[in-house]
């Protein structure tokens, strides 16, 4: 950035850049983004960052307290659990399983939801009204219920719980896409493209989708925080990821047996979920207010 403007040149940042500038102004949002990026790094490079194998049991080191307590040792930063597994490594891998699967399922739900939502938004008449209302009503079924049913039909497992949460998230994306597409279809730039002879398909990909991306990002962060909470809740209830797999909720459930003896086995995985959800919510909140401020100015 030059110190002074030699020419009276106006600076017009792109909408994306303006959002970023607004976002950067909020320090809390930036901290949230950094934390989220850190967790993402943990998930991506878990094998390089984890000091131990998350599944390796060590009979000589059961329930070692975390390193900051008197009896703790620095070789196990967060201590060990009832089977002598290193809690720090398990949490790093847990971030990978929980955050990774959440991101995957949100992307999948977004893809399906946007497709159906677009069709529903373009459709008109009684048929669309029935579908829309039914979807709205079915959207109310709790994730836990869907998960229980899926588990009853096909059995427990991380992938099955992912399907359940995907199913539960799809209606939200349908809902928002539908109202967005419906509102955009009435605007004049769509009419202009239509007069130019654009097909419905071209209209969607060239005109509506670029405008929709911001809405999708915001909805995506909302859905992501729900997905993380739900996946860990199902893991905790033993309906999702099964015990040896280091999923944060499942780790928490494992630690429950020794909660009184070794509270760090409950506190630390829970804290990780909490920090993860908090970071996602802060980033989402920052994004929303940045978008709002950009539109106002």
């Amino acid at each position: 950035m030059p110190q002074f403007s030699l020419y009276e040149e106006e600076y017009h940042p792109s909408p994306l850049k303006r959002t970023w500038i607004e976002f950067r102004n909020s320090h809390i949002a930036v901290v949230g983004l950094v934390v989220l990026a850190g967790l993402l790094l943990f998930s991506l490079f878990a094998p390089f960052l984890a000091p131990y194998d998350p599944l390796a049991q060590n009979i000589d080191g059961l329930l070692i307290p975390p390193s900051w307590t008197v009896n703790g040792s620095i070789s196990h930063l967060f201590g060990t659990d009832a089977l002598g597994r290193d809690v720090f490594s398990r949490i790093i891998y847990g971030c990978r399983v929980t955050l990774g699967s959440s991101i995957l399922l949100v992307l999948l739900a977004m893809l399906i939801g946007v497709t159906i939502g677009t069709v529903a938004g373009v459709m008109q008449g009684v048929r669309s009204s029935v579908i829309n209302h039914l979807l709205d009503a079915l959207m109310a079924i709790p994730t836990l219920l869907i998960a229980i049913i899926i588990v009853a039909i096909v059995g427990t497992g991380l992938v099955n719980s992912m399907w359940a949460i995907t199913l539960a998230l799809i209606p939200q994306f349908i809902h928002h896409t539908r109202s967005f597409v419906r509102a955009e279809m009435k605007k004049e730039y769509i009419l202009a493209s239509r007069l130019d002879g654009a097909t419905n398909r071209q209209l969607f990909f060239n005109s509506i989708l670029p405008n929709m991306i911001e809405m999708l990002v915001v909805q995506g962060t909302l859905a992501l925080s729900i997905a993380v909470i739900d996946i860990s809740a199902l893991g905790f209830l033993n309906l999702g990821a099964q015990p040896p797999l280091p999923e944060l909720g499942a780790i928490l459930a494992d630690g429950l047996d020794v909660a009184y003896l070794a509270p760090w086995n409950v506190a630390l995985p829970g804290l990780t979920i909490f920090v993860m959800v908090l970071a996602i919510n802060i980033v989402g909140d920052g994004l929303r207010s940045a978008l709002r401020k950009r539109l106002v100015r």
Partner: protein
Amino acid sequence: MINVLTRYLTLFVLTLLVLAALSFSLAYLFPGDVLTNLTGLTPQNDMQREALARQYKLDQPYVVQFYHYLGQLLSGNWGHSFISGLPLREEIGIAMPATIELATYAMLIALIVGVPVGYYAGMRSYTPIDHTINSVSLFSYSFPVFWLALLFILVFSLELGIAPLSGRVSLLFDIPDATGFILLDILLAEDIDKGLALSDALHHMALPTLAIAIITTAAMIRMTRRSVIDVLGRPYITAARSRGLSRWQIFSRHIVRNALLPILPLMAIQITTLITNAMIVETLFSWPGIGNWLIQAIYQRDYPALRVGMLAVSTLVITLTILVDLFNRLIDPSREKYERATV
């Protein structure tokens, strides 16, 4: 008005039909015998099996079967539990009110605390106190409910010992089950010390209710605050201000009611979260509600119970959601059908 009512009634019936069809198909989708999944009875021999199959019209086409199933549901014959052998209607009749009770109190707390605090934060928007309220609510909104409940148990029940660990009321009180709502039951019961029983029940209730309420309250604060800020930016507020109305007059005459409108449909969404959270918290506090019951059913692979339990819970949630939506539509007909505010 009548138009809207018919629309919502049709929607309600249609949704329930879809749910009933889903629940019927579960009998086929679940592993194991269709007859057992549908009735909860295990036939002892072939003759009994044929008789039962004829009774439940299993030898006829699916449509007839479904029609018969609907009739059975409506007449209250929901089948028997696989594990306990009791009629499912009775079991759900006991479990459901417990959940509703928990969720209602949590919702009440959320409304009583959340809405006024939200108004306050909204009126003082972008001041330090608003930022504090906003951050605290974002913080508590991010708690995974099961972890929060666990922390409560660890701190209040195990460390401090001021709240009981599980259940609804101490077993020393013999309280007959009249309505299913424990506080009402205590008031209706005879031959017990009502004061003691009430305080005991409230002690049991405090932790689970608080765990659910904290999250719902945070959501409520955020919704109300956002809505108030949106209303503050409207032209009619500027107009009122230019007429010289005081802050309090503007607030009481223009903001209170207008800000409530977008919150109502959001409450409909909150109901789902609320019931889910209640169901999860129940398993931790051994609260004898529908969530605990369903989780036990899935651990024991009690398929008839799951089939009916799913129908019962989703019917409850959808009824509440549609009622809130309908109410919202009736008090605010100008509203676009699909419009919803953000959290």
